[in-house]
């Protein structure tokens, strides 16, 4: 781990809907260097909200506050929409969950990738096209000329996600937020997509925030793990130390994993302690 890219301190996100307020993210703090940081937790624990808040892509009903939310020298919290547009895509980008929904259905995939490049580079259409072809090759797509002209409904999930990666990496960003990038994929293509992503992250020395709920995957794939529960970070530890986790929530999650070597008739059910919500 080297230079700190992201520094988040005491991040709070509240969704306000009339009188009703939902406190989705509570006092979350972490830093990100040139590493792969996982955020794990169950659905609704706020892990995706953290990712989207960093890019300020939260809906208008969300209120964000933090002691610090800095990207290098830039204070993301006070950055204007215009300033954010310069950061998004070019310096921090995000890989979305399901290419079936996250690609525009009526635009050729090649043009969608080119658009990401052209948003931040002054280049001719043909130069951009050339860059897209190179990028498609880097995510191991054979026959990029053909793939360029396909529409999203014509590509498979695995290819769609590699296209998504190409689109988000083409600008050589410093940080990538991957929001459950393999949840929508078959197990068979999952590994392929992950290794493409890993290759690019190492090559370009990016920082990666990997949002997931797959503990086994995270343990092998990432360097560090943040465990979130009900909007809080309950535990933060190195991925290789995951089995030594101390927090009862993390321990409970680990205990609930099925294992080939240790077959059980009933998997234990997580017992939630109301104290976790306040401490």
């Amino acid at each position, binding site marked *: 781990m080297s230079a700190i890219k992201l520094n988040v301190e005491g991040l709070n996100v509240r969704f306000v809907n009339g009188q009703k307020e939902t406190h989705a993210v509570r006092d979350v703090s972490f830093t990100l260097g040139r590493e792969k940081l996982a955020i794990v937790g169950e659905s609704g624990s706020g892990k995706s909200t953290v990712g989207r808040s960093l890019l300020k892509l939260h809906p208008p009903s969300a209120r964000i506050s933090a002691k610090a939310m800095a990207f290098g020298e830039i204070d993301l919290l006070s950055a204007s929409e215009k300033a954010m547009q310069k950061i998004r*895509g070019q310096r921090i980008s995000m890989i*979305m969950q399901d290419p079936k929904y996250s690609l525009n259905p009526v*635009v050729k995939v090649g043009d969608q990738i080119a658009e990401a490049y052209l948003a931040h580079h002054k280049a001719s259409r043909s130069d951009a096209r050339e860059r897209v072809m190179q990028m498609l090759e880097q995510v191991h797509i054979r026959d990029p000329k053909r793939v360029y002209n396909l529409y999203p409904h014509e590509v498979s999930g695995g290819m769609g996600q590699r296209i998504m990666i190409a689109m988000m990496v083409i600008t050589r960003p410093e940080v990538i937020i991957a929001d459950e990038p393999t949840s929508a994929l078959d197990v068979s293509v999952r590994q392929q997509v992950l290794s493409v992503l890993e290759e690019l992250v190492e090559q370009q020395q990016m920082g990666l925030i990997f949002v997931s709920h797959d503990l086994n995957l995270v343990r092998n794939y990432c360097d560090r793990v943040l465990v979130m529960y009900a909007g809080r970070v309950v535990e933060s530890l190195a991925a290789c130390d995951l089995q030594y986790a101390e927090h009862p929530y993390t321990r409970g999650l680990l205990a609930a994993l099925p294992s080939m070597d240790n077959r059980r008739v009933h998997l234990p059910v997580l017992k939630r302690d109301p104290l976790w919500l306040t401490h």
Partner: protein
Amino acid sequence: MFVLTASVLGARASNTARRAGTVLVTLLGLLALTFIIGRVMPLDPVLAVVGPDADSSTYDQVYRAMGLDKPIWTQFGLYLNDLLHGNFGNALLTGHPVLDDIRRVFPATIELATLAILFGIVIGLPLGVCAASNQGRMGDHVARVITLFGYSTPIFWLGMMGLLVFYAWLGWAGGAGRIDLAYDGMVPDVTGLLLVDSALAGDWEAFASALRHIVLPALILGLNSVAYISRMTRSFMLEQLSQEYIITARVKGLSRRQVVWGHAFRNILVQLLTVVALAYGSLLEGAVLIETVFAWPGFGQYLTSSLMLGDMNAVMGCVLVIGLIFVALNLISDALYTVFDPRTR
């Protein structure tokens, strides 16, 4: 490969055949319904021909000549037979064949409705997009007020107010009719559309006069389409703006305008096409009121006066034409689907 191509072609052909069948059945049903309504209504078509002073032998003669002594289905059959031979019958009002009459009055309405739908698109579409991308804020409220006004204001009232203000008081608009009397009949008839014909002839004074006459009724006629198109655009856009690919577009660092027009808007084109086609169709028939107020010598006025006279030949001819237009607009918008949506190719 060959078998595949053949089966695809076969599927296409049978699809076309099925569609043609549906069209025929629709038109036939439409005709039958109008025909029956015309015969059931307490109107005396014979009286309309012979006049109230005719003696009973003349009356009977005309009654038989019009085939009214035969059963209603025979009458309908005879009418259909005439139609197939391109004979819509003669109109009582003018004495000309109905088809000639329709050909004469139709361009005036087409011109009016086309300009009206252009207004509807040019104003309604950005209004709807603006409302959706500013949901709950100022732009949305402004659009809502305009929409409500467009939906709920009676068109004839607007027409009269428009004439009062812009013609009688301000003198901006041209008033009744399609063109000032001085130019009436001076523009060589090529397409029947005065704006096009005067431009073709290079007669810019006549063009200006025609423009002054058409803008006010077209704006008022188009107001309803403004409301309809902006409302539909708003709801289509709202649906698209909540999709995941919008987030993707924003992640790329695109500006709001690029996200709204370059991504969301491209996805509603197909739905908009149907909306515009439907709006255009209803403008053609909705021209009745505005044509009466503005003494516009078009299809709507022709249809109204034929109805008043109980002239079923003319009415049915008009109904058939309106039906045909609706069907044609639907077919065209269906055909254009494939242009805008790669998933239907």
